[in-house]
């Protein structure tokens, strides 16, 4: 009897001490497929591409964009999240677009990526263009969210040219190897 009671107590403690109250249903989250960040006028800007299911459940064929600004990157993301209907889920983002100005703030960027440690294999690209413009879909015929298709294009570009894969890990190591020019072309960064 004592054995059963002690097993019960251990189990109860385990349940109480675990984070069961915190969990949220997956439908309460907005899944972010890509994040673009930049630094302008002493403020961070974060734009998140949120994938939405269409009537055919083709995830990513519809997307909405939420933008937030703040004095830190975390603030900017938080403010972007406030504009979203549901909770923003950023840990599965496939693409990070880093603006040219933001590259100067490497310490804050590193902190940001280290916190998002579950996503170290996402693609990072630097951009000379306006970050918002890069994430917005251009062609109507595009079947997936821009960040998903752009991430694939960048990977294919690196593979084709024998460059290192532009993962977060590599970005943290050498500051990134691939960028998007003013003309919207994917190219190897000169300083890489």
């Amino acid at each position, binding site marked *: 009897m004592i054995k059963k009671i002690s097993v019960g107590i251990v189990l109860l403690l385990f349940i109480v001490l675990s984070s069961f109250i915190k969990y949220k*249903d997956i439908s309460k989250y907005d899944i972010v497929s890509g994040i673009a960040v930049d630094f302008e006028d002493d403020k961070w800007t974060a734009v998140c591409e949120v994938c939405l299911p269409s009537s055919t459940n083709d995830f990513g064929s519809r997307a909405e964009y939420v933008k937030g600004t703040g004095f830190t990157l975390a603030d900017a993301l938080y403010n972007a999240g406030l504009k979203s209907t549901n909770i923003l889920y950023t840990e599965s983002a496939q693409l990070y677009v880093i603006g040219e100005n933001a590259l100067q703030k490497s310490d804050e960027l590193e902190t940001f990526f280290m916190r998002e440690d579950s996503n170290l294999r996402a693609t990072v690209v630097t951009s000379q263009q306006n970050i918002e413009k890069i994430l917005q879909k251009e062609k109507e015929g595009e079947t997936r969210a821009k960040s998903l298709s752009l991430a694939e294009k960048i990977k294919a570009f690196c593979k084709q040219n024998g460059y290192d894969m532009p993962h977060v890990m590599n970005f943290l190591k050498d500051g990134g190897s691939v960028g998007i020019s003013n003309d919207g072309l994917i190219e190897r960064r000169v300083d890489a």
Partner: protein
Amino acid sequence: MRFFNSFEKNTEHFRNSFAGDDLFTIKILKNEHNPDIKIAIALNNCMVNSDVVNRDIIIPLCQMPITDDINSVLELGVFVFSAKLCDDIDTGVINVASGDTLIFIGDADKAITVDTKGMKQRDVSAPDTEQSVQGPAEGFNENIVTSLSLVKKRVMTSALKNEFVTLGKQSNSRLAVCYIEGVAKKELVDELKNRLNSIETDYIGDTNYIAEFIRDNKTSFIKTYGRTSRPDVFASKLLEGRVGVILNGSPSALTFPYLFIENFQTPDDYYLNCWYANIGRILRLIGFYLSFLVPAGFLALTLHHMSMLPPEWLYSISASRMGVPVPIVLEMFLLFGVFEILRETGTRMPSSIGLALNVVGAIILGQAAVDAKLVSAPSVIVVAFSGVMGLMVPNLKGAVFYIRLAMLLLATVSGLPGVFVGFMLLLILLCNMSSMGVPIMYLYSFFAKKGRSDTFFRAPIYKMNYRQKPFSDNIKRQGRV
């Protein structure tokens, strides 16, 4: 109580005992050579073989030159080999109730009891619950003698012992304790007999009644007794040193001890080439564990560890969840509820209706529910997959239900650590369980060095040289050891 020294008192006792039972008959006979001898037979009409009674009892008693000495009647007046003297009047009443015929001769304080049981019985046929592709198509039926003969046919040795025991105050059910002398451990046989003798009940309706009385870990949802309807399986278990119980009126027999790995063994494992048979066994083992780990893992990942899901899966699951009104936890429990309802309904239905039910339940209902956005497609897939996996091991389908329920709860409240803790608790539970005193996980222990040739994999027959030590002192089975 002994029989009376009076013909009238003895017959009167039986008339009183069976008063109100119109099937009971006492017939007074006259011997044509010695008409002064008082002869009567007592029997139950519906339970005896009329031919045997007329031809082998009534005609000899009436026509043979017998005296009123009961021993001479036993020799001359009954043409049935099973005839024997009975001293105890209460035993006589039980014998008549179970289909024997009792013969009263004069004022003798004994009676002759003759086995004349002639109840209709089902033909020997392949059991539905343990189908075999290549093996014999014979199954036990409800007649204990037929069932024992099917075992004896496979183990033709005088070492095969069948000890009869009567259980149930009202049902007086006959059962046989079967074992092979010199192979089964004597302590095991004695333990089983002691446990059987300790049963005090009115009625034994099936071997499951016995199992629930005598099994170890009585409250556990995991089986600690073997149950089979196949004489070939029963015989092979006896040859491994196990002890069996066959009950009159039940088409399934019990075997003790029962190890956990036996849940994953099927008759065809031994009738097919071992390489082919092992595929099935491994699939069953994997299927059992996946049947509760997959839904628990799915729930844990979608609730607590979304970042561990590949992004494509996450997008897909998230997309399918859009517009579904119930939370994913409730959805999983509801779907499993529906699955169990369909399974239970299908079990009791005739096969033709069962097929239609499966089509309606699985395809139409599932598809319609997904289309109507009542449930999400990934949940339906997970529930269907795990439900089918759970049915791969029929012996554990009840256990799987409870394990799955517990795992789902733990996954909901604690995520993957909860699933891990639940799995560890299950292993601890299994390691604590025993069957006739033998740990059911014995084969996984360090002590079972010999005889591991039939666990996760079945070795070729010529390499299965040993019996298990806890069952048998005589572990050498074959080959050069």
